[in-house]
């Protein structure tokens, strides 16, 4: 960075503003993070391309894929179901309070059902999985990277993008909609329980009333949009893990950044996907 006061005559030095107030220094100070972000994005794109290329060419790593489906799917199920249940209860209590206030209590089942299947179930699932699975994948791959295990895989003539990244990303993509169904179901059941505790209502009545006027376009697009969340979580966690440097501290950084970045991008993607769903499934 050039300090103009250094080359100016002594009497001019006092007149010229300090470097920190110059527009050029402001530009330079924001150039660093921007170029770093663009570089990160470029590297992520290259990583994604390498994973896609590895995933579509044989040999396919079915054994590892099934292991990851279990690891990411089955083992996330209790947490996702619990989060869905808690959300269902909170929604039921909040919606009851609001709708009663505005004299629309009869809409309560529909409000709970639509809220859960449209948005709350998918986004809660995305965030819970990005926390549990994102951190797990990020830390596991980072640990393998710093202990040269990924190099050892490559030295054994096995493509690590295929074995480690493609299987985990695909498992995330496939399991997110199923986990969303679990979150939706537990949310609906507990939403009904919270409702039935206050005012007796059968589950049959709750569901009939809640799904009245709903069709598959209310249910399928929000559920399948979580495949994009799965792609984001798997891709970012694998990328952050496999590019780690710097021992135990690097492993910690990879786990943290996997969770933070995947959660952030899940929320940002949700904004875009909700808009697209509203356009294509009005």
């Amino acid at each position, binding site marked *: 960075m050039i300090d103009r006061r250094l080359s100016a005559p002594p009497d001019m030095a006092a007149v010229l503003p300090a470097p920190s107030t110059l527009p050029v220094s402001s530009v330079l100070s924001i150039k660093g993070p921007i170029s770093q972000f663009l570089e990160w994005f470029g590297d992520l794109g290259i990583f994604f391309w*390498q994973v896609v290329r*590895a995933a579509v*060419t044989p*040999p396919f790593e079915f054994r590892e894929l099934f292991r990851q489906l279990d690891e990411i799917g089955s083992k996330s199920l209790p947490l996702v179901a619990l989060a869905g249940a808690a959300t269902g209860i909170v929604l039921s209590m909040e919606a009851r309070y609001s709708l009663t206030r505005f004299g629309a209590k009869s809409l309560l089942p529909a409000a709970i059902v639509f809220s859960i299947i449209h948005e709350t179930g998918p986004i809660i699932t995305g965030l819970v999985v990005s926390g549990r699975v994102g951190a797990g994948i990020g830390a596991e791959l980072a*640990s*393998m990277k710093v*202990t*040269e*295990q990924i*190099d*050892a*895989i*490559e*030295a*054994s*003539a*096995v*493509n690590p*993008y295929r074995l480690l990244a493609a299987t985990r990303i695909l498992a995330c993509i496939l399991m997110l909609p199923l986990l969303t169904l679990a979150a939706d179901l537990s949310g609906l059941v507990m939403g009904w329980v919270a409702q039935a505790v206050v005012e007796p209502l059968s589950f049959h009545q709750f569901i009939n009333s809640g799904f009245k006027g709903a069709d598959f376009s209310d249910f399928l697009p929000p559920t399948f949009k979580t495949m994009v969340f799965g792609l984001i979580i798997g891709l970012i966690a694998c990328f952050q893990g496999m590019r780690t440097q710097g021992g135990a501290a690097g492993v910690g950084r990879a786990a943290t950044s996997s969770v933070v970045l995947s959660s952030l991008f899940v929320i940002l993607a949700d904004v875009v996907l909700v808009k697209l769903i509203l356009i294509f499934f009005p």
Partner: protein
Amino acid sequence: METIDQIAMKQGEAEEVGSAAVIAVEGLRKSFGTQRVLNGISLSVKRGETLAVLGRSGTGKSVLLRLIIGLEKPDSGSVRIHGQDIAGLALDQMGEIRKKMGFLFQHAALYDSLTVEQNVAFPLQHHKKEMSKSERDDRVRGLLAEVGMEGNLAKMPSDISGGMQKRVGLARALALEPDILLLDEPTAGLDPISSAEIDDLVLKLQQEHHMASIVVTHDLHSAKAIADRLALLNEGDVVIQGNFEELQNSDIEFVREFLKHS
């Protein structure tokens, strides 16, 4: 992009024209940021020959091995394996060449979620799919017996000592019957008895399998025991190449200094 068959054809052609060097490194340069690690080094290894690469810590010995197996890309220069330049090969094409190479990492780099047996079986599971489970189990047990680890099949890498981990790493490196063996500090961090055992093991394997081997070490005694030739690196350059007597008789000050302190 070249297909794997084309690569194999080129390998065959290179061997036919009489290129005796299984590994040929020429003018290899590598920098990390502003730090120049290798400064245009050249060396070659023939079938059945063991070259020990010696030098002080941080002189690029391990980087040289990583360049040879393609885990790093050189800034310039070439690495030829069986006459085939590995520059620009895609990961799967490089994989075909790596099937003929065994690599022992400095810290063994065993897969910590797999048992000793599974670690050695890993390359076989991926590349010898025609093998039945019983054939594979026999092969794994044979390899572990060869390195004296037959009694530790079910143990996890964290449950065995550093020397044992290196033995398992060696068994894994030999699983695909490579004709090139790259060993990165095989005796580093081991007690003198374990070091001597590893040296004996490497020598025995070398005599039985007739591989072209490069052993990176800073242990002169180990190098003298297992290598046919030695290459001494300093500041990214090969200072001298030859047998142990040639090193002993050298007038180069760095060589004399290195031998004096070894």
